[in-house]
């Protein structure tokens, strides 16, 4: 993983690097060895690797979570915040997913929906899905 981050690919949101690393390790998504001899657009490469989401996405997810769980303004939310630690039960998680679908105009598979446990994971999934949609 470390060698990739120093390659020509540019990742945004450097500040959440550690989270991204653990994310990639946990989800063995189609990680294919990249053959540098062959031309691949950076967009294709992105599809093979789970990138950390943009801070704006994380912020939007946080707002939705805050509203769904009726959290007080002084409950600090970070990308790593776990839904369960915030008191979300499965019904809350499903409502959060529905709100995310509406906000970002995406459609989440039930299996994916149940795997979202943190704000970061939700944001990453949103960006994955938004990317896979045909260009508007």
């Amino acid at each position: 993983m470390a060698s990739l981050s120093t390659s020509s690919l540019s990742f945004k949101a450097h500040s959440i690097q550690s989270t991204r690393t653990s994310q990639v390790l946990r989800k063995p998504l189609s990680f294919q060895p990249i053959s540098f001899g062959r031309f691949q657009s950076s967009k294709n490469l992105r599809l093979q690797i789970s990138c950390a989401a943009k801070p704006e996405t994380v912020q939007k997810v946080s707002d939705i979570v805050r509203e769904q769980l009726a959290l007080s303004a002084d409950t600090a939310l970070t990308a790593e915040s776990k839904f369960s630690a915030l008191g979300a039960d499965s019904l809350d998680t499903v409502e959060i997913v529905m709100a995310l679908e509406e906000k970002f105009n995406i459609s989440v598979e039930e299996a994916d929906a149940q795997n979202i446990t943190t704000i970061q994971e939700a944001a990453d999934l949103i960006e994955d899905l938004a990317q896979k949609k045909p260009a508007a």
Partner: protein
Amino acid sequence: MRISVMSQMQRSFSIDLPSLIPLQLPSRRETHLWYVIPDEVKSTSLLKRYSQLLSQTEKDGVDQMRGDELKKNALLARTLVRTTVARYQTNKEVDPRSLMFKKNVYGKPEVDWQNCKNCNHQPLHFNISHTDSLIACGVTVHVPVGIDVEDKERKIKHDVLAFAKRFYSADEVNVLATIPDPEAQRKEFIKLWTLKEAYVKALGKGFSAAPFNTFTIRSMPGTEEGYSLCKTSEVTADPLEETKKCNGEWKFALLELADSHYAAVCIEDDQANEGAPMRVIVRKTIPFVEDQLISERIFL
């Protein structure tokens, strides 16, 4: 019927807790449903003693919760599981701290009998569920159990039908759509949610094994609170035909707890007991302090 254990204070564990009153295991087709109301547990010294029962992992889990109320509820949930399971040990008093837990391959928590010193291996199954204001634990023998509790007044942020269309089966949506009063519709939605959750939890294979829209739970005609499960492919227009096709492998009970919550219980049908009704015994408890028998009901 209240049973106070204060007289048991004489025999205590090294950490100065009273003994736990032992319990008889449930019979087949019987579910014991225990619940705690967090608001009724106020003593900080009692809560401190509870925290001494937990494993380090459980303590870490409690610490992770954001806010005192959530921490307290997480503590009570683990305490309820440990003390309840310990009480069913038949031959001797088992220290609730010595119980070990593990997760099955899909992540469902279960008792790890092999690694528990002094435990005798029992065919005991349990499942917990909680809301902000109630924590419940269901116990069965020989068959898996799933329970789910939900606040009756819980408001859904989305439109109930839109939510159902997105996640429930088409037949369930049809049933909900025929309810004219929005409040009655919301209540039915919540009841269905608890029943569906209870099934998935009883199944113990994670949510992806049984996505909500692949099965229908419906009330059984002719029964007051009987529910049955049909896989979506089996639902037909003819109710009689359907009753024959819907598998009877899973039994359901829906009850109300403390006037404030719906509770759904789902157990796997034990072939040996086919035809026998399902019984649910509800007790309210404050671990180490008191038990109160609430109800004993049969569900057809």
